[in-house]
């Protein structure tokens, strides 16, 4: 792998940037792998990378039915933060944020992490109490958190409307200064390149259509590129988690829903932080190109269509204009949808399934982009040692049997 640095840029400038090597190989699948990862989104690629780097496993394939990073990785609004309420969540999301903070160096790829601060607005007395409680819980867990009253919110984000007669008045907000955004594609590409350089086979246009078992344990997968053997299979397929688990006869507590986002035409810099409101389903930041990046809510019904309804967008834009009257003349350029896998407690599942050798990393729902490095790191540990790491042990599938749910609806909301 050519190391990217200012010197390689200078050297390639001399030859008109015509001689950059390919960033990764495109191998044909081998017959047999030690580990197969199904799903080449950020989480699958991160899993492969940490398996190779931290655990020395090199004989790995990542199988992706389309092109890698074309799922939710490419469709999300890229908000990164770790201010979740419960100890279990704070620990895993904070681990992830710490990995983010060193990621560009670690994988030698600029993931453009921009820690510009994330506000979570409170619009009612209930929201205020929940927010203050969460700030306190975060601090006890070593996660940076501040409570801002309405005036301080206005100071931090001057274009926000804090008038008392707004339909959803701003009563305050939590602020995580270390939160922000990162560049989604770079995360997929950077992990792919880093994993590839450690020998991982990343195979695109290879859809898994069946899971082979013998005597209650997995022995391989059926794909559009033939049968591939492996005794260890990790499902990391986001919106399609249930479909894949069903191939092995495993039922999951997951429903798949469309979640939409949209971007405006590029405008001059107007908002230099991230603003989220779980209550009115608004979240907005501005990209480096100047587009306002906004997320909407999920459609109520189950779907695999990667598109959502217009009334959901209408609802989000109505609330958005209340908060930011200055956006009223901005034109929206594109909208799209992704399929998110939601769990009843708004927390993910990372661990074993009842089928031996079959592992699942799913249920990240509307908020898994921020978890990409942490999720891959924990899942790699689980696959390599066949035991969950203490960070992901609470997120087992059997918490739905024991009843030890991790209810993050308040911190996850529809947003993240």
């Amino acid at each position, binding site marked *: 792998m050519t190391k990217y640095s200012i010197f390689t840029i200078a050297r390639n400038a001399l030859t008109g940037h015509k001689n950059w090597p390919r960033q990764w190989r495109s191998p044909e699948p081998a017959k047999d792998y030690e580990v197969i990862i199904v799903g080449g989104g950020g989480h699958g690629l991160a899993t492969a990378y940490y398996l190779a780097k931290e655990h020395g496993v090199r004989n790995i394939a990542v199988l992706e039915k389309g092109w890698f990073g074309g799922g939710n990785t490419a469709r999300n609004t890229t908000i990164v933060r770790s201010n979740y309420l419960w100890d279990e969540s704070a620990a895993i999301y904070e681990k992830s944020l710490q990995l983010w903070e060193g990621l560009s160096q670690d994988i030698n790829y600029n993931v453009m992490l921009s820690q510009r601060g994330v506000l979570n607005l409170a619009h009612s007395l209930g929201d205020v109490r929940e927010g203050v409680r969460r700030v306190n819980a975060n601090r006890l867990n070593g996660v940076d958190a501040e409570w801002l009253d309405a005036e301080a919110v206005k100071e931090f984000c001057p274009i926000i409307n804090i008038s008392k007669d707004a339909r959803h008045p701003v009563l305050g907000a939590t602020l995580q200064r270390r939160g922000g955004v990162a560049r989604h594609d770079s995360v997929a590409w950077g992990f792919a390149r880093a994993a590839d350089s450690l020998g991982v086979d990343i195979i695109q246009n290879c859809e898994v259509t069946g899971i082979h078992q013998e005597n209650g344990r997995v022995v391989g997968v059926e794909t559009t590129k033939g049968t591939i053997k492996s005794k260890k299979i990790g499902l990391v397929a986001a919106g*399609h988690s*249930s*479909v894949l688990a*069903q191939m092995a006869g495993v*039922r*999951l*507590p*997951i*429903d*798949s829903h469309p979640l939409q986002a949209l971007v405006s035409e590029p405008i001059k810099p107007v908002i230099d932080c991230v603003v989220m409101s779980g209550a009115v389903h608004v979240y907005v930041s501005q990209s480096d190109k100047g587009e306002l990046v906004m997320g909407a809510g999920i459609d*109520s*019904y*189950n*779907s*695999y*269509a990667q598109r959502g*309804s*217009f*009334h959901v967008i209408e609802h989000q834009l109505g609330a958005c204009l209340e908060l930011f009257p200055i956006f009223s003349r901005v034109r929206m350029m594109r909208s799209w949808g992704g399929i998110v896998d939601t769990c*009843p407690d708004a927390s993910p599942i990372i661990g074993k399934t009842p089928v031996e050798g079959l592992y699942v990393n799913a249920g990240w729902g509307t908020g898994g982009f921020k978890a990409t490095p942490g999720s891959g790191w924990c899942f790699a540990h689980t696959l390599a040692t066949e035991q969950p790491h203490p960070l992901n042990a609470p997120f087992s599938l059997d918490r*739905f*049997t*024991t*009843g030890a749910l991790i209810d993050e609806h308040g911190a996850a909301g529809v947003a993240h």
Partner: protein
Amino acid sequence: MLHISCPWCGPRAETEFRYGGEAHIARPQKPDELDDQQWADFLFMRTNTKGAFAERWYHSHGCRQWFNVIRNTVSHQILAVYKTDEKRPDFPIKGGV
């Protein structure tokens, strides 16, 4: 937006309805005899079908009745609407329709 035909009121916009998730999840006959695994299956485990999916809808801004719909979760096409005490019409479960 979906256009849903309520069995009582006829075709209406989706925004008049509320979604009730997967249909035909029968309440356990003898709840006191269930073990934790069976409770987990009943409460949390879902089919989440890709293709023809039986689901419940509630006409919350209309007649306030519940009913069932079979809808293709890939194309969103509604294949059947039926009352809760009627049998599920046959559609292949898998692979879109």
